[in-house]
C-alpha cells in the first residue's frame, strides 16, 4: 500500500489527509460515499469528548516561555521551500512562500519567499548608510535613524519575482502551488517616500533615471525611471509592524509597488540620479523577455494581473465530498483587483468569486468560492480582472506572442485537476 502512496510535494504530515490519500489511491475508489467515510476524524480519543484533555487540567507554560513567539509545533510544515536543482548554490537561489497554508492577504514575515544573489547581508544598522548622489544639488548621506525621522507612510503591497511561474512556460512542471506561484508575498511596509529623499538632496531637472544599489555581495543594482521613483516608491524599514527581516533587506529596502521584485533592492545603500539607464546585468542578461524571433522585451517592469487557487491545490487535496471553500489570491501591478472568476470545467463556464476586503491597489486580494464537491473530477481555474479592465490571459495566448523562452512574466491562468480520489495535480490544457 505504501508504495502506491501518491506524491504531493510538501504535503503536510496531517494524518487525516494521508490516510485519506492512501486509501483513495490504493482502493481506486469508485463512489464518493466510500471516500467520505475514509476522511472521518483522526486524533487521540483520550483528548476528545466526553474525555477531558491534559491541557484542560494542568497549567501551561508561563509568559516569556517564548520572548519572541513562534507558531505551534503542529504547524511545523508551514515553511518556505526551495527547488535544489534550480540553482548552483543556496547563496544565489530562491525559495517559495507556502501560499496554500495561508489565509487572508498578509504574508507572515518569516514565510516571505527569499531570492538572493550573493547571500543575506548581515548588517548592523549603526554601520549602514544610504547615499544619494549624482544629478542632485547636494549629495547626502543618511543614517537609518535619519530615514526614520522623515514623514512615514504605511502601505500594503505585493512583491512578486518576475520569474514566478517561470518554470511553467513550456508545460506543467512543478506539482505544487508553493513552487508554481510562491515567489510572491504581501506585507505592510513602513517607510519614507523616495520622493522626499530625492527632494531633500535637491533633485535636478536633468535627472531622468535612478540607479538603486544594495549593500550585499552581489551589489544588486537596477535602473528605475524617475517618474516611478517620484510616484509611489518607498524606502522601507519595517514590514508588518516590525523591522525588516535580514533576508528581506534589513535595515533598508526599496519598495517599488506593482513592479518586479528584483527592483525592490534590499540592503539599500545607494541611489544615484542620472540621465540614462545603466543597463546593468539584472536588466540585460536577466529580467529581459526573449521572444520567438530572437529579440527581447527590455524593461517589462509591471507585474500584470494574475490569480491562482491556493486551495485545493496539489498540496491541499480534497479530503471529502460535500461543502468546501475554494480559496485563492489575485493581484495586479496596475492597481486594484476588480473581479475574480472561477471555473470548474477548465474554462468552459465561469462563476464570480467573492472578494475579501480591503481590496487595495498593487496588493494581494483574497477570494473565495463556496462549493459542494460531488466527487467527480474537476478542472479548477481562476481568472482575475483588474481595475484597468485587463483580463488574466490563458497560457496559450501568452505563448502565441512570447513563445516559451521568455522565463519572466508568466501570469497565465493556472489549471488544477482534481481527480476522483481527491488528489490535485498541476495540468496543462490544450
Amino acid at each position, binding site marked *: 500500500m505504501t508504495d502506491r502512496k501518491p*506524491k504531493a510535494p510538501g*504535503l503536510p*504530515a496531517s494524518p487525516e489527509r494521508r490516510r485519506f490519500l492512501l486509501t483513495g489511491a490504493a482502493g481506486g475508489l469508485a463512489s464518493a460515499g466510500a471516500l467520505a467515510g475514509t476522511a472521518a476524524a483522526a486524533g487521540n480519543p483520550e483528548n476528545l469528548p466526553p474525555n477531558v484533555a491534559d491541557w484542560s487540567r494542568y497549567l501551561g507554560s508561563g509568559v516569556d516561555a517564548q520572548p519572541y513567539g513562534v507558531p505551534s509545533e503542529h504547524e511545523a510544515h508551514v515553511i518556505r*521551500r*526551495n527547488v*535544489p536543482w534550480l*540553482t548552483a548554490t543556496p*547563496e*544565489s537561489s530562491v525559495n517559495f512562500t507556502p501560499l496554500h497554508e495561508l489565509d487572508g492577504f498578509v504574508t507572515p514575515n518569516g514565510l516571505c519567499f527569499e531570492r538572493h544573489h*550573493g547571500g543575506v547581508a548581515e548588517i548592523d544598522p549603526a554601520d549602514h548608510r544610504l*547615499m544619494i*548622489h549624482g544629478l542632485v*544639488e*547636494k549629495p*547626502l*548621506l*543618511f*543614517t537609518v535613524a535619519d530615514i526614520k*525621522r*522623515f*514623514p512615514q507612510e504605511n502601505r500594503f503591497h505585493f512583491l512578486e519575482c518576475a520569474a514566478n511561474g517561470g518554470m511553467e512556460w513550456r508545460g*506543467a512542471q*512543478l*506539482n505544487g502551488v508553493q*513552487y508554481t506561484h510562491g515567489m510572491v508575498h504581501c506585507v505592510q511596509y513602513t517607510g519614507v517616500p523616495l520622493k*522626499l529623499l530625492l*527632494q*531633500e538632496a*535637491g533633485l535636478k531637472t536633468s535627472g531622468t533615471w535612478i540607479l538603486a*544599489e544594495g549593500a550585499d*555581495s*552581489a*551589489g544588486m543594482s537596477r535602473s528605475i525611471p524617475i517618474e516611478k521613483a517620484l510616484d509611489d516608491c518607498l524606502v522601507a524599514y519595517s514590514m508588518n509592524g516590525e523591522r525588516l527581516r535580514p533576508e528581506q533587506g534589513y535595515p533598508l529596502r526599496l519598495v517599488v509597488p506593482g513592479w518586479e521584485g528584483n527592483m525592490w533592492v534590499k540592503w539599500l545603500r*545607494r541611489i*544615484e540620479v*542620472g540621465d*540614462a*539607464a*545603466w*543597463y*546593468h*546585468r539584472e536588466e540585460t*542578461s536577466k529580467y529581459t523577455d526573449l521572444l520567438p524571433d*530572437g*529579440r527581447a*522585451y*527590455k524593461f*517589462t517592469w509591471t507585474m500584470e494581473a494574475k490569480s491562482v487557487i491556493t486551495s485545493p491545490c496539489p498540496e491541499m487535496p480534497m479530503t471529502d465530498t460535500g461543502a468546501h471553500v475554494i480559496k485563492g489570491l489575485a493581484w495586479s501591478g496596475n492597481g486594484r483587483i476588480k473581479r475574480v472568476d472561477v471555473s470548474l470545467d*477548465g*474554462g468552459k*463556464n*465561469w462563476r464570480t468569486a467573492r472578494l475579501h476586503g480591503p481590496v487595495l491597489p498593487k496588493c494581494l486580494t483574497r477570494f473565495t468560492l463556496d462549493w459542494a464537491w460531488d466527487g467527480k473530477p474537476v478542472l479548477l481555474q481562476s*481568472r482575475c480582472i483588474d481595475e484597468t479592465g485587463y*483580463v488574466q490571459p490563458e497560457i496559450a*495566448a501568452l505563448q502565441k506572442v512570447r513563445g516559451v523562452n521568455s522565463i519572466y512574466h508568466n501570469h497565465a491562468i493556472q489549471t488544477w*485537476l482534481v481527480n476522483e480520489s481527491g488528489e490535485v495535480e*498541476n495540468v*496543462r*490544457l*490544450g
Partner: protein
Amino acid sequence: MCAWASVAVPKLTTRLGVVAALGLGLALAASAASAEPGGFGLGRAATPEEIAGWDVDVRPDGTGLPPGEGSVQEGEEIYLERCAACHGEFGEGAGRYPVLMGGFDSLEEDRPEKTIGSYWPYASTVWDYVQRAMPFGEARSLSDDETYAVTAFLLYLNEVVEDDFVLTRENFTEVRLPNRDGFFMRDGSDLPSGEPCMKDCKAAVEVIGRARTLDVTPEDEQQALE
C-alpha cells in the same frame, strides 16, 4: 555632524506656515522657504571621497569607467585563477554555474543559450558586473586593471576581440556586442483585450500535460523517508 542643522524640521516648517498665514512671522517663513534643497534638514553632505568609494557603476556610454587597461592575455591568467573553477576554463560553465560564452545565433532556437556573446547588449555590463559581484563570494577584490583584463578575456572568449587586444577606458565604447540591437520596449499590453467570456466559452478541453509525469517536484524529507 549635521550639515543642515540650521534647516527647519518638518513640524517647525508647518508651524511657521501657520504663523505666516496669521500674518505674524513673514521673515521666519521666508527663511524656512529658502531651506532648499530639501527642507527636513536630515542627513549630512556626502564627501567626494565617500562618493568615489561607492560610486563604481558603469554605463554603456562609458560613464563611470576609471582610468586603466588590461589585455586578453593578462585576463586569461586572472580568469583561470579566479573564475574558471565555477565558470569553466573556456567559460563553458561548471555544474550549474553560468555559461559565459557561446550560444551564438541560438536565440531563436528551442533551447537558447544566453551569454555575453549571444545576448548581452553592452560590454559595459560585463565590466560593471564583474567588478561589483565577481568572483562570487569575493566581490570588489579585483583591481580596475584586472577588471579591464578579465573583461577583455571574456570578450575574446566570445569572439568579439582578437587575442592581442588590450581594453582601455579610451577604446571601451568602440567595443560592440553582437546583440546590441536585440532589445526593445513593449508598447503597452501585448495581448488582445476584451470582456471575458462567462458561459460556454469552449467546446472541449483536454489535458495535454501533467506535472506528475515529469516528477521534478521536490518532496519533503519526511515523506521521502517514509
